[in-house]
């Protein structure tokens, strides 16, 4: 199962990537995905970020659907 992950702002900056794709071996919820991300990029441990699935903010217990576009969003700074 493939998902596309977009990184923005501080997260893109720290990771050094604005997007990547991941192949998952099983379906995950948001909380599990977040943990995989923190295992991969342990330096994100101190950062607050929200996760959007297909452009909607997602609760931690929400399952990630097939072909999802996942966005990792650091604190907003608009205005």
């Amino acid at each position: 199962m493939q998902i596309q992950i977009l990184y923005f702002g501080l997260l893109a900056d720290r990771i050094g990537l604005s997007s990547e794709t991941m192949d998952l071996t099983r379906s995950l919820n948001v909380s599990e995905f977040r943990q995989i991300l923190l295992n991969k990029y342990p330096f994100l441990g101190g950062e607050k970020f929200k996760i959007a699935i297909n452009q909607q903010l997602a609760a931690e217990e929400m399952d990630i659907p097939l072909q999802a576009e996942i966005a990792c969003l650091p604190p907003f700074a608009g205005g």
Partner: protein
Amino acid sequence: MKKEHKRKKVLVHGPISPQFVADSIAKHQSKTDIGAHSLFLGQIRADQKSEGLVTGIDYSAYEPMAEEVFHRIREAAFQKYDLTCMHLYHSLGLVPVGMISLFVFVSSAHRRAAIEAVDFIVEQIKKDVPVFGKELVGEADQYVWKENK
């Protein structure tokens, strides 16, 4: 239920000029049911950070989601307040200190609706729109990521 309003692009490249604000106002002079315009402009402050003085903000966004959230805020404001029209603009890219990065423009027959709607819209934008800001500080290429409170 009111009808859904036309989608309009909110994100624009670079600062929003005072002339653009004037042109927006002038376009409303033919709308003779309007009695009150309420405008909000966000301007970049030269805040003092420990790393130095802010010289500008470089804005980026999760653009499709940001446009979608701006649209939802527009619709919510039209539902909540009795408004004639509404225009929102937010900058992307570099906006130097003293320049304008947010322009909220609401018109109504009466003042209360216009003033209250602007307050609501600005709060929602700060809270819900995935826009990110890199505050450039000092002389070198230093920066700090901005975070709305």
